[in-house]
């Protein structure tokens, strides 16, 4: 398979994730969309690493996965805290800092 195909797929997944972040109004789905974006980048890393014949792409993927795990843990803890505070997961409910 040409490398271009993997890159286009990666870009498509990233676009879907971005669209999810902007379109959805549920904090949990927002976090899921961020996970899709991180995975899109992972795919590009592994594809480039395969073309270059090194395993650096795979190593970077592990670090991205670790960061994703940390992000999910902290993000979900924040979501739980916010839900206790307002009884809602709609991002529009948390606009105290909006002028």
């Amino acid at each position: 398979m040409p490398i271009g195909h993997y890159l286009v797929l990666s870009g498509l997944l990233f676009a879907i994730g971005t669209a999810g972040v902007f379109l959805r109004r549920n904090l949990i789905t927002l976090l899921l969309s961020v996970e899709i974006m991180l995975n899109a980048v992972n795919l590009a890393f592994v594809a480039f690493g395969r073309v270059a014949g090194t395993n650096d792409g795979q190593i970077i993927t592990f670090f991205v996965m670790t960061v994703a795990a940390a992000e999910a843990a902290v993000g979900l803890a924040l979501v739980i805290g916010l839900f206790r505070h307002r009884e809602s997961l709609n991002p529009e409910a948390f606009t105290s800092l909006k002028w």
Partner: protein
Amino acid sequence: MGSDALLFYTFAAITVIGALLVVIQKNPVYSVLSIIAAFFGLAGLYVLLEAPFVAVVQIIIYAGAIMVLFLFVVMLLNVPREDAAEWDRSHPLYRPMAVRIGAVLAILLALELGWALSLTTGLGVGVAEGADAMSSVQKLGEVLFTKYMFAFEVTSILIIVAMVGAVVLARKREE
């Protein structure tokens, strides 16, 4: 069309449809389940890229651990479904001016991306053509514990901080 191309398009279709369903579904439980399907498609793509360890880690860590965490929180909070009628009235995309500006910017971005891709050479090179695969787990471990030693150790600090932070943030406040 070789079997490689067939497998690539199958896994790519699973991944893209799974990701689309995550964004389209109104019920967060179904969103989490469809992202797991997308991750299985991605794992298949990693196998095609001769990175089997990444594929296994993808399934065990992502589809296993992280998504269970998501599912747990969705069920713990009993997250309400998004209401379509409310979506229409209050969503920022309902403002026509903002939609027009955003559409122009998005089209511009797509055009520039296509332009950049058309100028890029080497996109037609097959992934397995140039070099041999470096998929041995032993090699991965050696590189991880020599060349990337510092990053690896910093990652462990990150995990500790995230763990403590998650516990502190989710704790019930004493009044």
